[in-house]
């Protein structure tokens, strides 16, 4: 589904990602964990080209993202992204947030887009909020709308960048539930998270980044029970 080869990313002289190679297969749920500043967000953002890699390649369904600009928008349509701070469109209602991109980008008819949006809102448990504006929603509700908005484009891959980190503790669960559901439905997912519980239970694979280096890449059980490297052991000791 998506293949990363020898990915490097520099901000000025700051080398944030160093020689990352990995692959995410269709239907796989991959958790990306690591200390703050280790490059997790940057890695995720390289996957849909919100950041341009300094070198190396990102290949989605056989298409190299470093190709011409036109393809990039097409490829981005296949990749949904959920941000820590939601980034819902504040001047649009919940329903419009979900229908805008499918109508504008894919040329879907309004009736169809709305029908699909309502199905998605039902799925994330927010059917009663379709006419609400984002500012009237709680954090957990906003994030569920954001997930639904990304899903409305019917992506093949979903990227999550710390989707629960900006939420009050009592709202984390409702968002994780939605994500678990999505994982069960077979969606391919890459999730940057500090929720070790989610990584352990839901992920098929865990990627551990430290100082921009991919240090471990393996099964959650192995990673959590017997980490191979010193760095991963140190990290786990601190967070568990």
């Amino acid at each position, binding site marked *: 589904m998506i293949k990363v080869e020898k990915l490097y990313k520099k901000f000025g002289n700051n080398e944030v990602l160093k020689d990352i190679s990995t692959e995410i297969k269709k239907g796989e749920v991959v958790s990306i964990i690591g200390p703050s500043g280790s490059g997790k967000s940057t890695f995720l953002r390289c996957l849909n080209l919100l950041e341009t890699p300094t070198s190396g390649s990102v290949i989605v369904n056989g298409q190299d993202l470093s190709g011409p600009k036109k393809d990039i928008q097409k490829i981005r349509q296949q990749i949904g992204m959920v941000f820590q*701070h939601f980034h819902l469109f504040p001047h649009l209602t919940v329903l419009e947030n979900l229908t805008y991109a499918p109508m504008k980008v894919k040329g879907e008819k309004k009736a169809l887009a709305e029908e699909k949006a309502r199905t998605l809102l039902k799925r994330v448990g927010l059917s009663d909020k379709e006419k609400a504006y984002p500012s009237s929603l709680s954090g957990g509700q906003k994030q569920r709308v954001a997930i639904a908005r990304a899903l409305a484009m019917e992506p093949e891959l979903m990227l999550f960048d710390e989707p629960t980190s900006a939420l009050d503790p009592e709202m984390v669960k409702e968002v994780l539930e939605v994500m678990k559901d999505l994982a069960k439905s077979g969606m391919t997912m890459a999730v940057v998270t500090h929720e070790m519980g989610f990584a352990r239970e839901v992920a098929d694979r865990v990627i551990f980044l430290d100082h921009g280096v991919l240090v471990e890449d393996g099964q959650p059980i192995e990673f959590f029970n017997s980490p191979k490297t010193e760095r991963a052991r140190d990290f786990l000791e601190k967070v568990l």
Partner: protein
Amino acid sequence: MNLDFSQIVPYIPFMLEGIWVTLKFVFFAIILGAILGTILALFKIGSIKPLRWFADAYTSIFRGTPLILQLMIIYYSIPQLTGYDISPFLSAILAFGLNSSAYISEIIRAGIQAVDKGQMEAAQALGIPYRAMMKDIILPQALKNILPALMNEFITLTKESAIVSTIGYLDLMRRAQVVGSDLFRNFEPLLFVGLIYWCLVMGLTVLGRLFERRLKLSD
């Protein structure tokens, strides 16, 4: 103290007419300023370097020199250079329009850049093309930052419009001077148009506040 307002009474219709004359050119200047200002702002946030330089240089020149000088240059240099005898009215619109476009472009640029960067990223991640993103996502949000500052610019423009009296345009200010020299009394007519300017500015201020409150309500 020898103030005598009774003497200006016959001149009041003449001076009141100045309100219309002033507002007329301010109105056209604002339209010109808004159109040019929007274009310049798009140059500034765009990725085409020469256009960005042009817009920056333009802004720097018009903000870095006195408006009265710009007005004089337009009024006196156009006939001298082209032979076209430009009217005070047209000169005033040009000078004020060109000048305010520099300020308005800054207002619009700042308003756009004040929109949370996450909005642009969310739009990009959804595959929304640049133009649609600007038009439907970024600009509607920027408008909330822009409109109050724009209102201020209009108020400033209305006040500063008095300097067109220096090129003989018969605006409010000029009319006060005309009446003053007719009567050999300057203070009363000046005070009278001062009051009118104040009313105009207050009117615009109140309008702006109402407008802002409506924007807040729609949040």
